[in-house]
């Protein structure tokens, strides 16, 4: 288990934990920066200033209570559905690849892709917002035509690590995948 610090495409710090369970089993945890107190305070403050302005204008204190409720609901929604704390990638050589997203509220959403569906793991380039970025993705095999790719599953969508970090993860993935390939070749 080792921790390394990389930066994401915006220059923020992300921590990459690598845990080796066995020769063919490895886990990567990418820990995104925590929600900063400053941004929460700024958002709340803006909402309240707007609410007080409204209140001064309408003199209806429903505005204030509505703001309180909506701020709390908004924050909960943000913590439960939007803000991702940790993204992990579990590679099990003989079974498949499992991706887990952990939200700040503790909610986890997991997706497991079986090995026989996976064609390869590659680094790809894409245009994202006003940037051209590299990202890691899993290529899924088309069950009807083994040569073709049916779809692409992008990894680390919220952390968006930079190329150095991706190359690191990519190399580890290839180590495990190549073992599977050699096993297939033996067959």
């Amino acid at each position, binding site marked *: 288990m080792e921790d390394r610090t990389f*930066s994401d*495409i*915006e*220059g923020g710090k992300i921590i990459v934990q690598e845990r080796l369970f066995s020769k063919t089993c490895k886990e990567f945890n990418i820990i995104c920066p925590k929600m900063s107190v400053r941004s929460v305070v700024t958002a709340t403050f803006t909402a309240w200033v707007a609410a007080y302005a409204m209140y001064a204008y309408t003199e209806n204190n429903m505005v204030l209570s509505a703001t309180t409720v909506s701020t709390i609901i908004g924050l909960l929604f943000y913590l439960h559905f939007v803000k991702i704390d940790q993204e992990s990638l579990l590679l099990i050589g003989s079974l498949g690849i499992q991706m887990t997203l952990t939200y700040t509220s503790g909610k986890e959403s997991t997706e497991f892709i079986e090995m026989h569906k996976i064609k*390869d793991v*590659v*680094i*790809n*380039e*894409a*245009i994202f917002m*006003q*940037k*051209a*970025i*590299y990202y890691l993705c899993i*290529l899924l095999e088309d069950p009807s035509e083994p040569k073709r*790719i049916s779809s*692409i599953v992008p990894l680390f969508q919220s952390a968006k690590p*930079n*190329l150095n970090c991706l190359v690191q993860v*990519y190399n580890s993935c290839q180590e495990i995948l190549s073992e599977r390939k050699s096993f297939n070749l033996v067959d």
Partner: protein
Amino acid sequence: MDSHHIQSMVDRSEEGHRTCFSTTTCFTDECLHHAANRTHSICMVSDFFYPNMGGVESHIYQLSQCLIERGHKVIIVTHAYGDRKGIRYLTNGLKVYYLPLKVMYNQSTATTLLHSFPLLRYIFVRERVTIVHSHSSFSAMAHDALFHAKTLRLHTVFTDHSLFGFADVSSVLTNKLLTVSLCDTTHIICVSYTSKENTVLRAALDPKIVSVIPNAVDPTDFTPDPHRAKENKITIVVVSRLVYRKGIDLLGGIIPEMCQKYPDLHFIIGGEGPKRIIIEEVRERYQLHDRVQLKGALEHQEVRDVLVQGDIFLNMSLTEAFCMAIVEAASCGLQVVSTRVGGIPEVLPEDYIILCEPSVKSLCGGLEKAIKNMKSGKLPSPDAIHRAVRPFYTWRDVAERSEKVYDWVSLQTVLPMNKRLDRLITHCGVVTGCIFAFFVVVSYIFLMFLRWTTPDSVIDIAVNATGPGGAWSRQYPPKKRLKN
């Protein structure tokens, strides 16, 4: 070798009236010596690229391929075509960015001078571009890229592929914009002397910074068909987009007249466009279904197969800077009949082309002359024509010349901010100059903002596919596979 003249094939044809503009740029030995063995990182920008088909598109592609062969790093930036968006690789690792910009009119993107800046800057930085080479004055994206490249203080080259008028409102406006866009561009390339003359006049440029590098064709793609059986019919081939600019309305007049006169005459028309209906109506009205064949849109590799079916190639363009179609046809061993417009007279020596005025009568006359030549049987064989035309225009030659332009350009200094503003105001008139100077200032502030939000150091350097140390140019198979 005292000086390198960037010269065109046409230098051999003596056309007196052109002397005042044919001051070819001289790149002295000394300055080129510094630049020798230098490789550049070139970014080609144009709205027009594959899958769109046309002269500009193939020019960019072929030039890029030859530059890659010569060891330079080349990337292409264009806008997204339908489903084709994102980043793609073509042959030999030619990387193409299909940017998600809104297409406004005729495959040209809308421009606000600012909205494409963040993305273009990101690409220029991550690819470590040193020279931005824009193509076609119809392309808004090309002009945007020039503008941004100057703000980023990169070297800029512009290739003009088309001719414009001076009279109507739209060309006056376009010419003004061209003046603004080109006044601080490091170097400009035109495809023919006529085009150079036109561009210099339109954009009020110093002819010294304008070079002429013609287009080329791939002669191996356009060879005569040796197995073609001798038939006793005459076939006229037309291959062009069916639009007004290509003179399709003239064709509508030519077809019935010629068909009446020569019962053994056949037409093969390749291409697609809004004017197709004219040909269809003519065909129906005169019952020429068996003699006028409409092939529809042709793939690039199908063009040769269509060309070799004919004896005479007809080009009716109303304006043309450099006509690649007639070179292709001549290379296939056809007789060429063309209008005498724009840069066409420069393209082929007079033995290989019959020039006419852009009118039905004159073109019919030209065709009759071609038919007479054919019937008299004193024409050189298609192979002979092919052998003669073959060395005229090659992409390697074009790339070599372009390389010299790049070498020269890379030694120039890009105008700093204050000089650029100065240039704009003095060169483009006070009102326009001031407006665009304001835009320059805004874009500079915008750049400051962008550098603050995403500093250059944060941007990942792209893996080089081409150029020195490129992943694709190495001998062993690339370790990293980049797909999609």
